[in-house]
């Protein structure tokens, strides 16, 4: 009896062999990684508190005092622009008793004042003052310079603002590495730069965050089947992937699957002006990006920046999969446009994304259903023992004269998903950044 009560706890998640749970050499994945609470807690430590995580777009911080609240993993953070013009990211939890400091999702302010006892923090997270401060005059441990909100490192790449809580993390440029070549397809096809359309759409899905991320990093395969009804309604025909001229590419877990069809995704918006814009500007894109990349600007494609920032060329939606537990995410959806696009075109993107890739959207409503049930089925203990197959396109690796990273033939491929999970396993196994392998162009 006593034995039963003192049954040995499961081994701590840190001692699991993640390169066995995720067997990328043979293309099998253990379902526990989508279900287990211990593994999830370690993800918060070793993925989200360690990687560069997307927190916003520079256009959301036009004036000093502009702020947004968001999450890095499950850590609530504030991102705010100070009077010097720097964007700061710090914990949204008071250093006094831990109360949430800011409850608005966006706005403009001079300071963040805690509701509980009135401690006030500046736009850089520093403690400015406290209520009845004279009472603290004899308090030896009360040092305002040490009681600010814990800050993250901030990095910006062509408008995208990222933050990390890991002092040892490589620089953002190094973290993105050669993947910047692919990011530039949307971030740098126009001299005016980019901006987010105001606001976003927020929704909750009962799925593990990795099912969403792997879907965007490389699951072109699902599109023709899952989204058959949307394709039939919008295109009046099936969508076929070009086998000759389509690819997957990945760099350190970031990945994109893409064709070179210029307008394949954009057609899905059902906004003819967007397609016209892409066709008319192809030569202009080519001046900045070169001929090949200019063909990607609105092409059939999906992408995910490790760990949880995804986007679609053509639709121009950017989104984050923020974990809310092992079996839940919050999805935030934005629309990115070039600053100098005519207003009418920005409107077309804004309304087109709502109609396609938002919770009301014709494409997205089918995705959520799949991801939720891929997750929920793992409640079954026997179910959880059955490994999942990720073996498509094992021998598809190729060298390409222009495309950087690990490049694979044909969009219909599990290569990017395997690369995503290998990066995940590398990070889950590593005690620090120094132990994380370089996967910037590794085979398979």
């Amino acid at each position, binding site marked *: 009896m006593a034995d039963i009560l003192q049954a040995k706890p499961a081994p701590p998640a840190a001692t699991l062999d993640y390169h066995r749970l995720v067997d990328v050499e043979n293309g099998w994945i253990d379902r526990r990684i989508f279900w287990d609470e211990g593994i999830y807690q370690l993800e918060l430590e070793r993925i989200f508190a360690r990687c560069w995580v997307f927190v916003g777009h520079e256009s959301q911080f036009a004036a000093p005092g502009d702020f947004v609240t968001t999450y890095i993993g499950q850590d609530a953070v504030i991102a705010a622009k100070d009077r010097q013009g720097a964007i700061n990211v710090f914990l949204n939890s008071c250093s006094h008793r831990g109360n949430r400091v800011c409850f608005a999702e966006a*706005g403009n302010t001079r300071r963040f004042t805690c509701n509980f006892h009135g401690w006030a923090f500046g736009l850089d997270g520093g403690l400015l003052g406290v209520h009845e401060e004279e009472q603290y005059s004899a308090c030896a441990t009360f040092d305002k310079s040490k009681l600010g909100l814990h800050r993250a490192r901030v990095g910006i790449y062509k408008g995208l603002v990222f933050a990390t809580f890991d002092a040892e993390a490589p620089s953002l440029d190094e973290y993105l590495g050669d993947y910047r070549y692919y990011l530039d397809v949307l971030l740098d096809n126009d001299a005016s730069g980019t901006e987010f359309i*105001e606001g*976003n759409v927020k929704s909750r899905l009962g799925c593990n965050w990795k099912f969403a991320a792997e879907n965007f990093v490389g699951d072109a395969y699902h599109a023709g089947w899952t989204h058959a009804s949307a394709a039939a309604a919008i295109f009046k025909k099936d969508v076929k992937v070009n086998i000759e001229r389509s690819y997957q590419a990945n760099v350190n877990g970031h990945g994109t699957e893409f064709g070179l069809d210029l307008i394949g995704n954009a057609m899905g918006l059902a906004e003819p002006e967007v397609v016209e814009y892409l066709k008319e500007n192809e030569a202009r894109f080519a001046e900045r990006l070169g001929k090949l990349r200019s063909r990607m600007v609105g092409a059939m494609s999906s992408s995910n920046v490790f760990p949880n920032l995804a986007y679609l060329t053509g639709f121009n939606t950017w989104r984050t999969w923020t974990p809310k537990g092992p079996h839940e995410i919050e999805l935030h959806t934005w629309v990115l446009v070039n600053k100098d696009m005519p207003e009418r075109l920005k409107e077309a993107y*804004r309304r087109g994304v709502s109609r396609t890739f938002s*919770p009301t959207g014709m494409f997205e409503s089918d995705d959520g259903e799949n991801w939720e049930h891929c997750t929920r089925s793992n409640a079954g203990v026997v179910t959880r023992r059955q490994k999942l197959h990720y073996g498509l396109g094992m021998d598809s690796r190729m060298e390409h004269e222009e495309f950087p990273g690990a490049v694979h033939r044909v969009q219909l491929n599990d290569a990017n998903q395997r690369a995503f999970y290998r990066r995940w396993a590398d990070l889950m196994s590593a005690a620090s950044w120094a132990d994380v392998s370089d996967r910037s162009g590794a085979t398979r």
Partner: protein
Amino acid sequence: MSVNAVEQAVAAPRRASLQLVHDVQQLLYREARLLDEQRYDDWFELMEDDFRLWIPVPQSRYRRDGQGIYEPRRMAHFDDSLSELKLRASRWKETTAWSEDPPTRHVHYVTNIEVEPAEAAAEWLVHSVVISLRNRNEDEENWLGGRREDVIRETAAGLKLAGRKVFVTQSVLMAKNFNTFL
């Protein structure tokens, strides 16, 4: 200004008759049933050609903030013309709309109906509250409530919907999708 006010009714001397209030009520109830029964083509018959549906995504902002909870420039759940709504609904008719088969079970509950004069002579500004209950598969359940502002027009063919705004209260939609109209 009250926190949720988006548009104040224009005070005009007209008053809705009991008969009109009754007819408006019946229109909204019939409409709710058509949505429950997923009879979208019949639902679209209740709209004027210039009908627009706007369902903004609310933002949680401080009262002192210059911007409101609902703003037209922002991303919206719906900001569609009638033909765009028809395009959305056309997907549900495809046999390949997997996430609609087996179908979602819907209840649209409409209440708090008020009929006020609108600016145009043949139009009425109708306030109501709508609550959508959806159940699907074994145990999935989603509630979504919103305050509606409709423009209802008197036409030769009877009362028609000429425009609708729905101010939902969830800023984070607590569901994987929003596969109905409100």
